[in-house]
């Protein structure tokens, strides 16, 4: 634990040095990078130890405020999320150095670095806190700091708006969590997690209210449909490395919270499992569908976060059902799939956001219909982005496939659990999600990197500096590693899954045995893919070396291939699918003589939340006349209140005698 806090301290020190040395930019960059990197490296050590089966003693600070001692500890779940926080956090922070550098003169870059390190620290605190008070404090710090990271470009009105929507969403979630613990407190001696867990049997209706509030509170953070409405705007508006952190780590804290809840309360009621499962399905399908409709690269990626949260929730839901219906292996696999996909999504989604950031830096636009042909100008970025795309679509030989496969295993495994058999219907849903994701990333790759540039900006784009490529390739490497050698991630994930269910070593070993051979098979498949692809490429080159090779324009069926504008746009590419899924896709189609446009609308934010708020506002303004400024009526209110109370007095005066 000391090592952990040492690391966090070093991270914070890095942020402070960035602020202190802001006059000498290069020095500040070095200090920030070194200290943050070192700190993350230090702090991850205890986590690794725990995931390897070791134990780290808790740290307990005697109570300074009511609610019991402040305890910090690292159990398998915390350790797993700690790894996510620190790896992605370090990558984003390091990337941020040169990503923000061009803004140094007109925006508070140093402050942003400091906020970043604070954010990493509070994330680490969230996953290690073992009592309600420090948990809530760390939680709110994480949320609010994230807000300030998002509104870095606060001179743009839409950034401010997105930030406000985010803040409102997250604060509402926090209120739900406060309600959760305030309700729970009445059954427990104090607010330490141990006490709360001990008190959980006393919660009426097997903790129904706690679980419901948990879904509301943590759901806002995780961004599951329909609580996702803050997410696309915030991720789109934030600086790219912040989006990477938000999408990769911050929203995952919602998942962490739900899993922690399961640990504390024990097997959730059946309805909760089904609820989470169906929420996962809805979020997955709608998320990817809405992603297809986007034209803004970062908003598109943001909606994919919603989709992947859906996949994670599928695992979580089936795990909960397995727990409830005493199918330990299904439970372990479900939870393991959830945490594993959390890790994988953190890796490839932050990779993708960093790639998007590189595109943004190079071309200055996020609109896909202005981009194109970047594969030639930014080959390294394109390679990294392609790896991320294959991973997020869940294709072999990368990590996305591994975690989706584990979730599939859990869902298919429910065939053996009579009470939960219906859960297997989620399998085709997951397949649909995969197919749609494939369509979406074909669209992204095609529109942004392939074909010909659609605008001068895209023509101008060039490769970004190494300091930005480095983090991207580090993440890509991690994706490939987990894809080729799944055991390194799956085995710890299974340990975590077992710990979540409160299941002993037995189920853990059973689950490990159940997937062990398959993992070997997957690993073999991945190796074959890589090796044979290389061999095939080499063979093909060998063959073609002796053949005439000519270069010309793209064959346009007899026409001369005139302008890049003739290329298929992202909008047209997605149109058939969106048309098939209307109205759920939530796009407004606009056909003019010369053009075809689709305008994405968020069904929840634009059709539900904002209208409701508008109605509330109008209602509030209807109350304004109360304060119309005439003293006489003010006194009348007073008189009225007095008479009302006297009436109450008269009613209640008999009854209780002296």
């Amino acid at each position: 634990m000391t090592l952990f806090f040492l690391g966090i301290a070093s991270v914070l020190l890095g942020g402070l040095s960035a602020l202190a040395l802001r006059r000498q930019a290069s020095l500040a960059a070095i200090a920030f990078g070194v200290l943050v990197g070192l700190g993350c490296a230090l702090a991850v050590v205890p986590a690794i130890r725990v995931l390897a089966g070791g134990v780290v003693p808790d740290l307990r600070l005697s109570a300074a405020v009511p609610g019991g001692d402040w305890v910090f500890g690292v159990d398998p779940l915390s350790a797993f999320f700690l790894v996510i926080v620190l790896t992605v956090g370090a990558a984003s922070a390091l990337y941020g150095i040169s990503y923000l550098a061009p803004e140094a003169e007109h925006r508070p870059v140093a402050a942003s670095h400091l906020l970043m390190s604070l954010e990493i620290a509070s994330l680490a605190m969230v996953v290690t806190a073992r009592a309600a008070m420090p948990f809530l404090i760390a939680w709110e710090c994480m949320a609010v700091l994230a807000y300030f990271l998002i509104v870095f470009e606060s001179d743009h009105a839409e950034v401010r708006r997105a930030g406000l929507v985010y803040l409102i969403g997250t604060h509402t979630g926090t209120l739900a969590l406060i309600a959760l613990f305030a309700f729970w407190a009445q059954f427990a001696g104090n607010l330490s997690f141990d006490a709360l867990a001990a008190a959980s049997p006393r919660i009426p209706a097997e903790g129904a209210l706690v679980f419901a509030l948990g879904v509301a509170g943590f759901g806002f953070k995780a961004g599951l449909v329909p609580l996702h409405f803050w997410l696309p705007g915030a991720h789109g508006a934030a600086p790219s490395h912040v989006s990477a952190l938000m999408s990769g780590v911050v929203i995952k804290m919602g998942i962490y919270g739900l899993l922690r809840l399961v640990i504390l309360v024990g097997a959730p009621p059946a309805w909760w499992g089904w609820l989470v499962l169906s929420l996962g399905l809805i979020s997955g399908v709608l998320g990817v569908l809405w992603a297809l409709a986007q034209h803004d690269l970062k908003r598109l990626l943001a909606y994919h976060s919603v989709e992947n949260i859906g996949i994670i929730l599928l695992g979580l839901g089936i795990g909960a059902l397995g727990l409830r219906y005493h199918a330990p292996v299904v439970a372990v696999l479900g939870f393991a799939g959830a945490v594993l996909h959390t890790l994988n999504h953190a890796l490839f989604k932050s990779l993708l956001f960093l790639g998007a950031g590189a595109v943004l830096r190079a071309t200055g636009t996020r609109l896909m219909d202005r981009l194109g042909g970047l594969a030639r100008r930014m080959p390294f970025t394109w390679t990294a982005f392609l790896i991320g795309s294959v991973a997020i679509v869940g294709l072999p030989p990368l990590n996305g496939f591994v975690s989706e496969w584990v979730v599939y295993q859990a869902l298919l495994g429910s065939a053996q659990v009579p009470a939960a058999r219906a859960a297997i219907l989620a399998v085709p849903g997951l397949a649909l999600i995969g197919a749609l994701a494939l369509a979406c990333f074909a669209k992204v790759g095609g529109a942004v990197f392939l074909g010909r540039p659609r605008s001068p900006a895209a023509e101008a784009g060039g490769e970004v500096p190494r300091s930005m490529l480095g983090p991207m390739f580090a993440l890509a490497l991690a994706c490939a590693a987990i894809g080729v050698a799944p055991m390194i991630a799956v085995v710890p994930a299974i340990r975590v899954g077992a710990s979540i269910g409160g299941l002993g070593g037995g189920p853990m070993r059973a689950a490990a045995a159940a997937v062990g051979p398959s993992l070997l098979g997957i690993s073999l498949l991945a190796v074959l893919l890589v090796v044979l692809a290389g061999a095939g490429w080499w063979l093909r080159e060998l063959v073609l070396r002796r053949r005439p090779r000519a270069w010309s324009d793209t064959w346009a069926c007899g026409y001369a291939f005139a302008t890049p504008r003739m290329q298929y746009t992202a909008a047209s590419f997605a149109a058939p699918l969106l048309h098939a899924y209307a109205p759920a896709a939530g796009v407004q189609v606009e056909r003019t003589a010369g053009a075809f446009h689709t305008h994405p609308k968020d069904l929840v934010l634009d059709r539900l939340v904002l209208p409701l708020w508008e109605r509330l506002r109008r209602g509030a303004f209807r109350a304004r006349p109360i304060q119309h400024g005439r003293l006489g009526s003010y006194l009348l209110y007073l008189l009225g209140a007095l008479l009302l109370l006297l009436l109450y007095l008269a009613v209640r005066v008999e009854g209780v005698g002296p």
Partner: protein
Amino acid sequence: MSWSGIAAVAIVLFIAPLLPGLAAKTKARLTGRRGAPVHQLYWDLARLWRKGAVYSRTTTWIFRFAPVVLVLTGVLAALFLPLDGQRGVVTFSGDLVAFAYLLALGRFFVVLAALDTGSSFEGMGASREVTVAAFAEPALFLALVALVLATGRLSLTGILGAPLAHAWPAAAPALAMVAVSLFLVLLAEGSRVPVDDPATHLELTMIHEVMVLDHSGPDLALLLYGSALKLALVGALVVAVIAPRAALPPLVGLAVLVLGLMVVAGIIGVVESVMARLRLDRVPQFLTAASVLAALGVILMLVA
């Protein structure tokens, strides 16, 4: 990993180009024409392989890499199917997911290659391809889920093996529906009528053909072979569902498979001669129907 298995894979890899020819032949005969010889595709592939290649200046390595990936994924997917009726060359619990996702990987790269050319035609084809796939994938998985429920196994070898044979008498109607929906999926994956028309010569109406418009020479050969192989694999899946051969000795099973594939190709030909290509925005309905069939099968299994 049995020798019969490997032999089976080799044979399927070899006869794959035969199937489109057979379909075309059947169609020709039924429409009173003589038609091209059955082995036409072999000749085409050979000729293309010997040719040189012309590349668009717009394209990048993706364009040239995709054909390799398509064939490779097809070959690897073949390893999972119990082609000899006994067991796949590689098999593990949950490999059915790997099977489907391998095919998806191939599709992903072909689509990217199409977009790499920056041509509006190939963009159009790519868009249609992913649309069709997005509707075919759930149907395929629903069918697989039905098989999982019927057999209680999680590997292709398992769900297509002995237990399936035992499940047939109990759940004949459900399995029949599953088989039909798998056949519809086959039509889509193999880009046949009524989803796509390989014989058309108007780019605006094609799906798969228009995607590979710009490829030439060996690349085109690889692409054509890859799609033929995909047809063969899904066909093998259909055959395996209709005629589980776990009881038969490997060689007989293999013979049954080859025969079955011929029959399937024949049926495709028949369908193509009696049906016209659907309007593109009707395709989703068509494939949704496939999903619904499979879903009915699954529901029957669940309530049983």
